């Protein structure tokens, strides 16, 4: 047996504050006990000390909500400590699926017709038109290779960074996150070619030529390789 006692809780100071590393191989009750001992054995806080934020890293251990609460409770017993963030290497299946859905581009070849609502969790690449009274909704960006004549709602879960781009922009409404942009009463017969809509810092929806995207949304370029 190893003479040294296995350290289940390690406290590290970083420039962002304290980081508590919790070992992931011991049992949870053991971990809690040691956490309590470690925290009380240490420095006694003074009345007027500023409160200290702590990040908790749980390694490869999966913690359910109850267990997370318990750990927070133990840490909060020390009046000057509060848990800023809990970091874990573990991702549940649901979280992983959501993460994947929200980050993938769904490609659809279809005309979204009057009365239809088409919704995707991530980005939408629509090869086809959105007709008047039709609606497309995406958690991320909306790219339309066709005519946008209905309603497009990008970032509908609140993503302000989302954009809408269309080959022909003649929308009834553009919506990004919580903002709505109404169309002018009249479009020229052929609409506006290759335009995009994004939200600026004042939360206004701006419609401009596609070229500006590179400037305002550099993250859209996921292209790797090439020249």
């Amino acid at each position, binding site marked *: 047996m190893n003479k040294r006692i296995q350290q289940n809780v390690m406290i590290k100071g970083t420039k962002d504050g304290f980081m508590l590393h919790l070992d992931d191989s011991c049992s949870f009750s053991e971990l809690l006990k040691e956490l309590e001992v470690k925290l009380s054995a240490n420095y006694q806080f003074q009345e007027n000390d500023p409160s200290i934020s702590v990040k908790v890293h749980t390694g490869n251990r999966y913690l359910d909500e109850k267990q997370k609460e318990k750990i927070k409770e133990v840490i909060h017993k020390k009046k000057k400590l509060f848990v800023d963030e809990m970091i874990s290497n573990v991702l549940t299946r649901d979280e992983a699926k959501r993460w994947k859905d929200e980050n993938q581009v769904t490609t659809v070849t279809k*005309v979204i*017709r*009057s*009365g*239809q609502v088409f919704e995707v969790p991530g980005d939408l690449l629509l090869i086809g*038109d959105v007709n*008047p*009274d039709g609606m497309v909704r995406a958690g991320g960006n909306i790219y339309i290779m066709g005519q946008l004549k209905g309603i497009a709602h990008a970032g509908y879960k609140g993503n302000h960074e989302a954009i809408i781009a269309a080959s022909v922009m003649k929308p009834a409404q553009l919506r990004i996150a919580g903002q709505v942009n109404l169309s002018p009463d009249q479009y020229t017969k052929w609409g506006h070619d290759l335009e995009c809509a994004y939200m600026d810092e004042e939360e206004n929806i701006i419609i401009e030529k596609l070229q500006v995207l590179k400037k305002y949304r550099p993250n859209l370029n996921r292209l790797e390789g090439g020249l």
Partner: protein
Amino acid sequence: MGEAIVITSGKGGVGKTTTSANLGTSLALLGKKVCLIDTDIGLRNLDVIMGLENRIIYDLVDVVEGRCKIHQALIKDKHFEDLLYLLPAPQNSDKSAVNEEQMRKLISDMKPDYDYILIDCPAGIEQGFRNAIAGADKAIIVTTAERPAVRDADRIIGLLEKEEHIEPPQLIINRIRGHLLHEDEEMDIDGVTDFLKIDLIGVIPDDDQVIVAANKKEPIAYNPDNRVSLAYRNIARRILGESVPLTPIGGEPKGFISKIKKFFSVR
């Protein structure tokens, strides 16, 4: 085994019933055995246009509820020996008198006996529409070149695309006025097909003779010299699988004289 084709539009008054009557007649003129089914329960019209309203004894609801046999309710068109039949709708019930399952069964029972079953659909997207499309294999959308009609057609196409038993719908643009096309007042044929993005099976010009024919209780398709009749007959041939080119509609805006007047800016 025949084909069941539903004729629908969404919007009322664009010419579903006229189209059903004339396509049925045209197909019968081409030697096909046709049955027309009016599903506009409570507001039937097809019998009037066909000139058969005085001969109704039993109707669609009587058949599906088993009060009579199918052949008892069918009305034979007097122009043909044994080619054109009508199953009329009742005037004194409402759309809920029939359900989709009953329609599906009725039509599959009838299919072996006919080459084509044309189902005249009521306006709207409620139960009547559901009934009309339930047993159909194909759909023909009728629209005029006006925005409200095209919008409703778009909605209907969206609903039909969800029905897996129906082939992608085809389009008839009805009541095209040649002179308006030239004045850019109307959506033109390309505008409509570009909007709806489905196959065009025919274009019907606007003609007062259609109204005259309806009042005479005889579909215009019997008249061999009329351009509307010709357009319907061409659609019937396209339904049979022939390739018939579209006849251009309109031609000169308002005739030669007006062109000269326009040239000299006299109005």
